[in-house]
């Protein structure tokens, strides 16, 4: 029982750090534009699928990953420019449908490009399991964990210690005031979309060797990332990271001890419970206090 628990925790943290990265993307975009971007999961899928294709075409992994990330980042910018900006000031329901439309569109593009098959990336450093205490760990899990720690730290430092990051945060507090002190809000908006598309793509590339990718792979990931952002209190980047880890661990425990078929139901039941007792997420009010 304790050995199993340890194994489930390791799995949970790996999956959770993926959710954390997707959730972080949600929080960044929400901060900059008050939009929940339901196409976030599609960024993960596009990053993974592009990298897989490029590696299959004989490109070295690092170059393939870099190009895939840049391409996805470009898709994020295009989404902002051609779907979000023209609908500025639309209602919550309208923006939800626009981004869901964008997600369906991107899925449609992926279906045309890659078909319905599942594709996988070869592991970055072999697939000999590492034995760690009673748990076994795929080397790729370490890549995911390390990548997530690096990216989250970088985003945290960027938001709190650079002028541009602070400008982005300023936009999230009060867009009009940010504009008045000379922050170019439009640029910040593009920055947020580009950044979260890039984050999503890297997350997708890191996880691609473990979970196979297909044109539909982004749907559930996007929803879990949204859940992570909601649990953390939407618009709170580090709350989203904590929410993602919590969600991943609970899901792994639920899958291990209760039923793997019900793991998605367990994850969303947890989200519902959080919302029933804390209607603005676990770390939701911190945003208000920070002002």
């Amino acid at each position, binding site marked *: 029982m304790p050995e199993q628990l340890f194994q489930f925790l390791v799995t949970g943290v790996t999956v959770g750090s993926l959710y954390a990265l997707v959730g972080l993307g949600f929080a960044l975009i929400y901060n900059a534009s008050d939009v929940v971007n339901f196409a976030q999961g599609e960024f993960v899928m596009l990053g993974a699928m592009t990298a897989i294709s490029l590696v299959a075409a004989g490109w070295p992994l690092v170059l393939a990953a870099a190009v895939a990330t840049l391409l996805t980042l470009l898709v994020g910018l295009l989404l902002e420019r051609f779907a979000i900006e023209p609908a500025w000031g639309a209602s919550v329901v309208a923006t*939800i449908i626009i981004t869901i439309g964008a997600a369906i*569109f991107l899925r449609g593009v992926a*279906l045309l490009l890659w078909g319905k098959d599942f594709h996988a990336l070869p592991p970055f450093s072999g697939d000999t399991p590492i034995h760690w205490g009673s748990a076994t760990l795929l080397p790729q899990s370490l890549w995911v964990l390390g990548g997530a720690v690096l990216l989250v730290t970088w985003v945290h430092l960027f938001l709190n210690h650079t002028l541009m990051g602070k400008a982005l945060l300023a936009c999230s507090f009060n867009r009009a005031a940010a504009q008045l002190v000379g922050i170019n809000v439009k640029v910040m908006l593009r920055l947020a979309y580009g950044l979260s598309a890039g984050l999503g793509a890297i997350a997708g590339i890191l996880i691609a060797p473990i979970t196979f990718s297909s044109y539909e792979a982004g749907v559930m990931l996007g929803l879990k990332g949204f859940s992570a952002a*909601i649990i953390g209190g939407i618009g709170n980047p580090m709350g989203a990271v904590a929410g993602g880890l919590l969600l991943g661990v609970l899901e792994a425990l639920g899958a291990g001890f209760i039923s793997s078929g019900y793991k998605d139901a367990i994850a*969303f039941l947890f989200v519902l419970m959080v*919302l029933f007792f804390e*209607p603005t997420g676990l770390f939701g009010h911190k945003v208000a206090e920070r002002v």
Partner: protein
Amino acid sequence: MRLVGFYIFAAIAALLPVLFPNNYFVTVVGASAGLHVILAVGLNLLIGYTGQISLGHAAFFGMGAYASAIMTTRFGWPGWLAMVAGLLVAGSIAWLFARPILRLRGHYLAMATLGFGIIIHVIMVQAMQWTGGPDGLAGIPPLNLLGWTIEGDEQWYGVIAAAMLLTIWLSLNIVDSRMGRALRAVRGSEFAAQMMGIDTASAKTQVFVISALFAAFAGSLFAHQQAFVSPDSFNLMISVELVTMVVLGGMASTFGAACGAIALTLLHQGLVVFEDYEMLIHGALLMAVMIFMPQGLFVGLSQVARRVWTHFRGRSTQCAESIGK
């Protein structure tokens, strides 16, 4: 005057099979559009009139369908009794969840309803001994009403059209009642509505239950009409489509929701020929309509019509005045 639109709608629904007898498009696609109208009109009460969102409404549609399917195939219940059971189940679950869920706002409400829909869908897939799992349940007997068994596409078209008109009539009446005014007040400002003495929590609960009942009713009809149910008909994408129908037609308009439902059903039929491009076009259209016509097709177009109308009427009154002089 209030029911003019209703009579026009009823006349069109009745005339279609007369004008195009034995037409697959009218009977089969028309029946599917009719079910979508019931769903969209019910959801519109919640989204359009009350200003709440539900991204999990397919769950209630599924509850009605599965209640009918399970009760008739496994327990041999008559269809109408199974339908009542489905309404009871969906209604009570909606009632139980309404208060905690509708306390949430905006994106939190979207998340909660979305999660609710996914949980119900997972149960449909996993509770195999009851629901038949991913393969679904087949062999649902035809619906029998007072000794009359509904069979064939034409009869189903008639029954669904009648059910659709009933729900439109109900919705029009709800909207114009004391409750309907309370709902619109909640949409305007929940706080102001409370100050006016409206019990907003119970108003929101009532409308949530009513829209769940509409959905479960459509679900029962769907199960009998198809004689087969599977979880794929009640997943997240279906919930999203229901919301799209309401928003596409134009919010806070019963006929807008109905037109949105019909438009989206026709769109799906039309896009089938594009095969692999279907998804791409579907996504692009969703984005385009929401960007360029955020108030919805029906409301957008009727505003244009009204502007044209007042333009001409303005001219004719001017004429009358000049003649009077």
